[in-house]
């Protein structure tokens, strides 16, 4: 009500910006110069879903997970294994989501024994153990050779084997994920989660079950991660331990932190940044890890709050300066 009263006339600038962004996203296959770029856009979108999932923990729960690629890998491997065993696409996807979320439950029960730095250590160890499992459990995962997929599903008779159709499928999934995160953050559970991030003891004293709130946040994060795992494996048509290693976990953490943890748009911007830099750079040099590490150090030291909040802050600062100057001139005139 009060928001409506504040802005009675026309659309707010924010709504216009969202409409433009949505229109741009919906027409990507028409204005992108080639199939390669449409594929890069699809990658950005499913990595954005992954980053949104991690951001639920990093940004809103204050729990930094360094093993999330392991969870993505479990969903991706589950899809690959089910398809290889001869099951159909719908069953494979459902099984992947169930297995992914169930693994997240175990992962959460173990890592929520600690918070802060302890949480990082445990999740890192768990992520590496999942990697070890993918690498060594050859009878299931085919070891270093990985699992190849053959074909993508045909939901409702709509074949998604071209770059454009895959892009639209990813876009729908991305928009659903974005809506889910928005609803989650604005829900009472989301508010309680941010409370446990900032004042866990006070929340506990107020009668909230801090552990349970964190656990459900983990489960939501796990669901988004599993969804992105399925999208990932259908995109690459291949899954190997490389997708599960610490580099992959660090990459998605970089997406969240570089864009801005605890903001809705931050992880999306971060995903776009990392995917674009990675695909552009890999065309020229092989030293992606060096650059990844350097960006990490630079962002943490120079812009710890991330690009989205950082830019907003700079913009507001500039705007205020400009207004102040105008005001000063207006006063000086008479």
């Amino acid at each position: 009500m009060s928001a409506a009263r504040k802005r009675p006339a026309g659309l707010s600038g924010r709504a216009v910006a969202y409409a433009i962004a949505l229109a741009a996203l919906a027409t990507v296959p028409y204005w992108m110069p080639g199939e390669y770029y449409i594929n890069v856009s699809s990658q950005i979108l499913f990595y954005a879903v992954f980053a949104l999932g991690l951001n639920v923990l990093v940004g809103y729960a204050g729990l930094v997970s360094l093993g999330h690629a392991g969870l993505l890998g479990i969903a991706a491997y589950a899809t690959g294994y089910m398809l290889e065993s001869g099951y159909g696409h719908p069953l494979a996807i459902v099984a992947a989501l169930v297995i992914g979320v169930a693994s997240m439950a175990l992962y959460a029960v173990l890592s929520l024994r600690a918070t802060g730095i302890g949480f990082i250590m445990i999740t890192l160890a768990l992520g590496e153990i999942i990697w070890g499992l993918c690498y060594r459990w050859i009878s299931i995962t085919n070891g270093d050779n990985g699992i190849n997929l053959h074909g993508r599903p045909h939901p409702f008779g709509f074949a998604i084997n071209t770059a454009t159709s895959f892009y639209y499928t990813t876009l729908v999934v991305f928009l659903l994920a974005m809506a889910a995160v928005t609803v989650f953050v604005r829900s009472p559970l989301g508010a309680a989660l941010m409370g446990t991030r900032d004042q866990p003891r006070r929340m506990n004293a107020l009668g909230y079950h801090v552990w349970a709130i964190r656990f459900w946040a983990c489960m939501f994060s796990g669901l988004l991660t599993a969804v992105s795992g399925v999208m990932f494996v259908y995109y690459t048509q291949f899954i190997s331990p490389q997708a599960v290693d610490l580099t992959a976990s660090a990459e998605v953490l970089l997406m969240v932190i570089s864009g801005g943890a605890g903001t809705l748009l931050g992880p999306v911007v971060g995903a776009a940044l990392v995917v674009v830099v990675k695909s552009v750079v890999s065309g020229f040099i092989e030293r992606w890890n060096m650059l990844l590490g350097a960006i990490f150090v630079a962002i943490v030291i120079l812009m710890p709050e991330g690009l989205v909040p950082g830019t907003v802050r700079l913009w507001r600062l500039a705007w205020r300066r400009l207004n102040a100057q105008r005001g000063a001139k207006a006063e000086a005139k008479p």
Partner: protein
Amino acid sequence: MTFWLLLTVNSITFGGLLFLLAAGFSLIFGLMRIPNLTHGSLFMLGAYFGATFVGGMLGLYFNFWVAALIAAVMVALFGAVIERFLLRQLPGQPLAQVLVTLGIAFMIADFCLMVWGGDPINVATPSGLTGFIRLGPLVFPYYRLAVIAIAVAVALGLWLLLDRTRLGAMIRAGVDDPDMARVVGIRVSQLFTIVFSLGAGLAAFAGIIGAPILSVYPGLDFQMLPLALVVVILGGSGSLLGSFIGSLIIGVIYNFGQALLPELSYFVLFLPMLLVLIFRPQGLFGRFVP
């Protein structure tokens, strides 16, 4: 029987190596309250440096032990630089410090790949320790026994350092209560640099001592790091005894796992961690919950 005994000796050898790695990790964690995610990278860097010195550089061939010492000192200096010029920039922000160590770990990994390539480098067992000792039907390589002896010697040395010297008392005070230590006039931030470079040097030393057994290859860093993490979660942070016992347990589980359940060898490490997290979150000998 022979199989089991040999496996046990190998496990204890690996446990000794893990102790050299994890002792520094645990000390850094105890004092600075951050897991140093470059620790595996420092181990690998030490191994590569050592291998280069042993294998000959600019026509100079170093003795294995001299090479190990030089590599350890070089990496210790590098550790001091990381602490002074990067971690020091982020005081009181443990999360940012951890992320910086992660970033550096990636840079070191890529640097090693660039300089030494992707092929594993084998390091010859130092001369004088190449033989075997025979006890009835059993055959033990001298070198593995030497690694155990070195680990025990380093453990004793560290214990003396921490328990009997002024510096050690200052470090213990910093681990137990950094604020109070500052109040009584201990320059805790100086201790940070000393402990960080000591830990880095020990990790590098472990890397080169382990090289004749493990060889040196890309990916060694992130293979060793989780082991150090699991040791510290198991043994408890900031505790020397915890690192020692934890390393032995993990050494045994890892080696037996690899021999008996090769497909699940990494997974069985999970078991002791699970039990400790459920029943004793501060670790077996830990003083605080991280």
